[in-house]
C-alpha cells in the first residue's frame, strides 16, 4: 500500500491542453473518486497514473517514488477496465493469474493467490469458465480478482460499473466498497456518476475541463461547494439555480421575484446565481409562489417540478402530498442552506 502524489501534472494532445496543472495528494489507504462529466480528463489522468498515457509535464509519485518513466507493469498497480478487458481465450483462473505467470511466480503460489482472491469474490465455482460464459457482474468480479491477485500498491478503477444494469450497479458498488474496507489498498476510482462518487469515496475530486474544480469529503462537497459547477454536479436531483441580482439585503430574480437571503444579506452584485437544493425548499402557506408542472412521487419523497417566475425549479418533499400539475404552491428556502454564486461561478457566501 502506498500514498499517491500528483504534482503539477499536465497533458497535451498536440495543441490541446487536456489536463491543466493537476495537484492531488492521496493518502495511504484512501478511496478517492475522480468524478466529472465526459471529456473532463478524469480517465486520462487515471491512464497517466497507470502508464497507458504519457505525462506531458509534472510528476506522479507512488509510495514516494516518481513513476513517470516506469513501464505500467513496473508501477505496482492494478487496473479494472470499463469493459473488463478479460482475455477471452483464457479461463477465469488463467485471466487472474496471467500477470503472475508472466512474472514467473511458481505455480503453487499462483494457485494459492487465485484461490484466495476467488474466495473473496465468490468466484470459486467459475474458475474453469471462459469470460464469454459469465454474466456482466461475474466478469466484473473476475476483473477485480485479476487486480487483487497481484496484491498491488494501488487499485485503479476506470468506470467499472457503467456496463451493468442499475440493480447490479448498486450491488457491485457495495461490494467494491466492502473490498476496500477489507484490503485497505489505496484506490483511485473514475466515474461520471456522482452518486457512485458520493456513496463510495473517502474523498472526491471533481474535475471540469481538465482542471480540478474541488477536492473534499463527499458531504463537504455537498454542503459547501466552492463553485457553481460542483454545486450543480454533486447531488440528485441537482441544485436549483435562480439567476438574478442582490442589493441591500434583497435578492431579486430576473423575473422580479424576491427571495430571502437570510444570513447572507451582505451579498451584493448582478448576474448572481441563487442556489438551493431541492430538499431545502419547504412548503408553506406564504412564501415564494411556484407554478407546478409535474409531480413525481417516488415513495420515499415527492418531487415537484415547476417554475418560479420563468425559471425551472425542483422541490423534494419528504411528505406524500396531493399536489396537482397546474397548481400554485408557496415554498420557503432554508436560509441557512443557500449557495450564492457570482458571475464567474465562484461561491460568494
Amino acid at each position: 500500500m502506498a500514498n499517491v502524489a500528483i504534482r503539477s501534472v499536465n497533458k497535451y494532445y498536440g495543441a490541446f491542453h487536456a489536463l491543466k496543472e493537476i495537484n492531488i495528494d492521496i493518502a495511504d489507504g484512501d478511496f478517492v473518486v475522480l468524478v466529472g462529466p465526459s471529456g473532463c480528463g478524469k480517465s486520462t489522468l487515471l491512464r497517466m497514473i497507470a502508464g497507458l498515457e504519457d505525462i506531458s509535464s509534472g510528476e506522479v509519485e507512488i509510495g514516494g517514488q516518481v513513476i513517470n518513466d516506469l513501464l505500467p507493469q513496473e508501477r505496482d498497480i492494478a487496473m479494472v477496465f470499463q469493459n473488463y478487458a478479460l482475455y477471452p481465450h483464457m479461463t477465469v483462473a488463467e485471466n487472474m493469474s496471467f500477470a503472475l505467470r508472466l512474472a514467473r511466480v511458481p505455480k503453487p503460489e499462483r494457485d494459492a493467490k487465485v484461490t484466495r482472491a476467488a474466495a473473496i469474490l465468490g468466484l470459486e465455482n467459475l474458475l474453469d469458465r471462459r469470460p464469454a460464459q459469465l454474466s456482466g457482474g461475474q466478469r466484473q468480479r473476475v476483473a477485480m480478482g485479476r487486480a487483487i491477485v497481484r496484491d498491488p500498491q494501488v487499485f485503479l478503477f476506470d468506470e467499472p460499473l457503467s456496463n451493468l444494469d442499475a440493480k447490479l450497479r448498486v450491488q457491485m458498488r457495495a461490494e467494491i466498497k466492502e473490498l476496500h474496507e477489507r484490503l485497505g489498498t489505496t484506490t483511485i476510482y473514475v466515474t461520471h456518476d456522482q452518486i457512485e462518487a458520493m456513496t463510495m469515496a473517502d474523498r472526491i475530486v471533481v474535475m471540469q475541463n481538465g482542471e480540478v474544480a474541488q477536492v473534499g469529503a463527499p458531504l463537504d462537497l455537498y454542503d459547501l461547494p466552492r463553485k457553481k459547477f460542483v454545486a450543480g454536479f454533486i447531488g440528485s436531483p441537482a441544485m436549483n439555480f435562480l439567476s438574478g441580482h442582490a442589493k441591500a439585503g434583497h435578492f431579486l430574480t430576473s423575473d422580479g421575484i424576491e427571495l430571502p437571503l437570510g444570513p447572507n444579506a451582505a451579498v451584493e452584485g448582478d448576474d448572481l446565481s441563487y442556489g438551493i437544493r431541492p430538499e431545502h425548499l419547504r412548503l408553506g402557506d406564504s412564501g415564494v409562489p411556484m407554478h407546478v408542472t409535474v409531480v413525481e412521487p417516488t415513495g420515499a419523497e415527492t418531487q415537484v417540478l415547476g417554475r418560479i417566475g420563468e425559471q425551472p425549479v425542483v422541490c423534494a418533499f419528504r411528505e406524500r402530498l396531493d399536489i396537482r400539475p397546474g397548481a400554485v404552491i408557496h415554498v420557503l428556502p432554508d436560509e441557512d442552506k443557500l449557495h450564492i454564486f457570482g458571475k464567474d461561478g465562484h461561491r460568494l457566501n
Partner: protein
Amino acid sequence: MPGFGTNGPSVAVARRAGSRRRERFIQQLFLLPAVAYILIFFGYPVVKNVVMGFQNYSMKSFFTGKAPWVGLQNYESVVSSPIFSSALINTIVFTICSIAGQFVIGLAIALYFRKRFPLNDLLRSLILLPWLLPLIVSSAIWRWLLDQDNGALNRILELLLLADRPGWLTTTSLSLVACILVNIWIGIPFNVAILYSGLQEIPEELYEAGQLDGATGWTAFRWITWPLMRPVVSVVLMLGVIYTLKVMDLILGLTGGGPANSSQTLATQSYHLSFVQFQFGQGAAMANILVAISLIFALLYLYINKFAGKS
C-alpha cells in the same frame, strides 16, 4: 344455417394451408435464378469434367461427337507418366513456400499497419494493388523484370555485385523459385487484408490490460494476438492453399511450366495435356485429381469456419 358453424373452421384451415403452400412456392421461385446459375456454370462443367476423365476425348471427338469410354486408363497414364511425380512435388513445394512467404510477410505488414502513422490508410490501400491487377498482366511485368539480360532485378544485382545475371526464368534450378517469389508478391495483399481485419477485431483494452500484466511486444503477440487470431489464421491458410493449388495463368505467363518441366505443376500440366497436347481425357483426369486435393482443404476450411463461428 346449421352447417356453417361446423364447416367454417375446416374451410378456413384448408384455405390457410393453400395460401401457405402458394407462398412457399413463390419463395422457392426466387431461388430459381441462383440454382440455375449454379447448375449451368458450376454443376455442368464439374460433371462434364468427371465424365471426360473416363473417356478417350480427343480433337476427333469434337467432330464425331464420339468419345469411347476407357475407364481408369486416363488416370493410369497420367499418374504413371514421369512428369506427374515432378509436377506433384513442384505443386507441393510451390504451395507450401508461397503460403509460408505470403503469410509471414502479410502478417508482419498487417501488424505494422496496426501502429498509427501518417498515410497509414493510403499505404494500406496501395498494398492491395497487386491483387487488383489481372494475373496475366502481373506475370508479363514480372517476366520483364526477371529477364536475364535486360531485367531490372539482374541489373540491380549486378550493380550491387551480388550475382552474375542468373537466368531466373530460364534455369531449371531457378524457374520454380521465380514463380514462388512472384506468387508471394501476388498473395501478400490477400493475407494483409484478412489478417489486418482480424487484428482490428482484437480490442485495444486487451493490450492495455496486457501492458499492466507485463505483456508487451513479443509477449503480447504470443499470449494475446496469436491465440485470438487463430481462427482467422486458419481461414487465411486454408483459403491460401486452395487458391495456390490452382495457380496456372501466372506460371504459364512466366515460364510456361519450363524449362524442361522444372516449374510444371499439376494445374499447368493439366492445361498442357488438354490444350497443348489435346489429350482432353487425360487433362480432365489431371484436373480432377487437383479438384480432389482442393476439396480436402475446402472441407477442412468449412469445418474450421464452422468451429470458429461457434467459439
